């Protein structure tokens, strides 16, 4: 699991954006992004990470401070989804939106598994 730095750390925003840009540029794994700080986002990320274990074609990114994404158009998608209530966002290997999870689904192993599977299959949300 990749945990992005927050603005509280030195060059936190720049480093976070660089790390996330690397994820955007790669074409190996689909990604499940969890936005927010606190126990619940950590739990969601941890559960998603369990479904990604031993699988290089799946990745999990926890962004405790979503504000680090501000200023980069490529990441606006994530902020928009968060604003719409998404707790976890599944992205294809091309960083396209596949699906979002919220509420009970966000912590349900099966829902997380299927979100990964759909993203890995290249399914894009319309």
């Amino acid at each position, binding site marked *: 699991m990749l945990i992005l730095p927050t603005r509280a750390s030195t060059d936190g925003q720049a480093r976070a954006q660089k790390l996330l840009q690397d994820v955007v*540029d790669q074409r190996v794994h689909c990604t499940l992004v969890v936005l927010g700080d606190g126990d619940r986002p950590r739990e969601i990320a941890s559960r998603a990470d369990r479904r990604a274990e031993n*699988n290089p074609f799946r990745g999990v990114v926890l962004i405790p401070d979503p504000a680090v994404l501000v200023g980069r158009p490529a990441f606006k998608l994530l902020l928009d989804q968060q604003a719409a209530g998404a707790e976890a966002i599944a992205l294809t290997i091309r960083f396209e939106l596949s699906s979002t999870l919220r509420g009970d689904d966000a912590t349900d*192993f099966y829902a997380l598994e299927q979100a990964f599977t759909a993203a890995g*299959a290249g399914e894009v949300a319309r």
Partner: protein
Amino acid sequence: MKRRLLGWLAGGLAGCASAPARPPSLQPLGDTVALTEVTATGDRVPLAGDGVAEVDINSRIEVQVDRARVQDVLAQQPGGDAAQAQRVKARLKQLGELTRQQQQMVKQLVDLKGAWLAEGSTSVPTEALQRAVRQFNQALAPLNASIKRYAVAAGQSTDTYFGQPGFDGVYKALDDERQKVLAQAAALANATGLRWRMQAELTGGKPIHLQNYDTYPDGTFTVVDKLAPEAQLKEISAQFDEAKQLAKDVKDLAGLKDALIKSAVTSLQGVLTSLQDSLRGDLTTLAPVVQAIPDAALSIKEVAAVRKQLDDLVPTLQAIQTGCAPILAAIKKGSLGGVSVAQGEACLHAVQSHGSDLLTQAKAAGAGALALIDQVKKDPAKFTGVFQPVQDLVPKLLTVAALQQWADTITKGWTELKAFLQLSSDAAAATQWTSDQQTDHLFAEITDTAIDLRRTDRKEGDFLYFRPSIVKQDGAAALIGTTTDMRVVRMGAYIDVSAGVGFVDRRDGHWGPFSAAPGVVAAVHYHSRPTTGWARLWNAVRPGVGVHFLYPDLGSKQVNAMGVATGDDPSFELGVGGTVTVFGDLLQVGAGYDLQVNASYWYVGFGLDTLAKLGVRFSPGS
């Protein structure tokens, strides 16, 4: 007999054709166990349940039980909670399929990872790999949905499976669930009181110890040295005596057929004598019994049964009477001396064709006759209106009952006699199973086991029988599985030494005359594993190459026109040379040199070892 010899050879060759693909097993319990031969060199060879598999004399046969399949069969057995058994069966079926598919996905993921590593773990893999990963995920979604459906139907949380780490975790969770359901199935089966039994026997009904499944003793470990001749010196010596006698008796090649038929007829004598005795000297004695049964009595079950059985039996006896009339007459006189070869052959043919039917029918008719006699005694009222004619039948029915005793007595010997008459073509007939020391298992306690041939008193050519079965608490059979038949052979190179008779022709530029000579042949053979048509052909022909020692009689002393004795006729002649054999030692062709007469010769002959294994023996002096 010649026809039989040819038939036997043709039968051996017929097995050489390439086997077509086998359909799935439809035999009881046929697919619940998998037998694997582990050779002396550690090779593992799966054994098919169909036909007669060949196993090496120094091998071990592992028996692996498919517990899921056993439970599947059990679910179809009567008794217990049928509805619950069906549910468990359905769950097992679903789990079997889900586990298999998930295992495939795990393997595919490993392959994809391998492909990515092979590309250097780059952050942008090739399009082909990206496409493969996409397809992998597309296939995964419906499998995940199936697992969810199973979990919901079983009242489980999906976390049971998807809460485990990665794909491997899901697979392990599915397998754990399968084990749990298997245990439930076993508990259900145990509640029915049924048990699992496995047993193995060698030719002659000799039980073989199966670890955990019986209390028969574990035999002494012995490995057969294939390059040491199998026949003991004593046997070779006895065969050589036979060969010497045959060489005296059989003056030429045509005499061989006579000798073979006489040998077979002599073996039949005991069976025919006892049959004739039990029928008071006449095989047609039962025909009037059938006619004496009043039609009015046929409405009585026991009478109708006897009539039906006699209707079957009488023609069979008639056929044997017709085929063997001269032999039966000779037996009455007390000597087979006047029986011709043609008469002997006709009788052998009749017994071969009708002997098995006769035994079955005699037993059934005898049992039926006894039941009828019993009814006449106990319940005469049942026979109102026909009592007297039925009562008159009783003395005649006692003859039929005696025939049952004859059949019971002869049954065991019949297997051997039949094998002899048919030159072993049917020697793999059903074995007599003994079950006095079995340790039957609850279904939760089924274990795999092994048949260690090296700890058995096996010989080449022996048959090995194995069967699983499901038995009730009292040991009675609930479902008897199909017997797997195996033949013990010496795989690879081996040496045989045997005595035989050669028909020797001196190499003097003239064809013949052939004179019979006893001898001994040592030949090396090779038995291939019968995996191809060619290997089966090779094994059927069983070629060999070796050396021979013959005792020819090529020397002769003559007096010429001048009154001078010429030539030499030593009292002892030894011929040494090379031999090529086919069908074991059965047919031999060789060339050699007579050391006393200083003359070369060639010969064609036959060995006695293969014939002895087929049950054909020529007693010296016969």
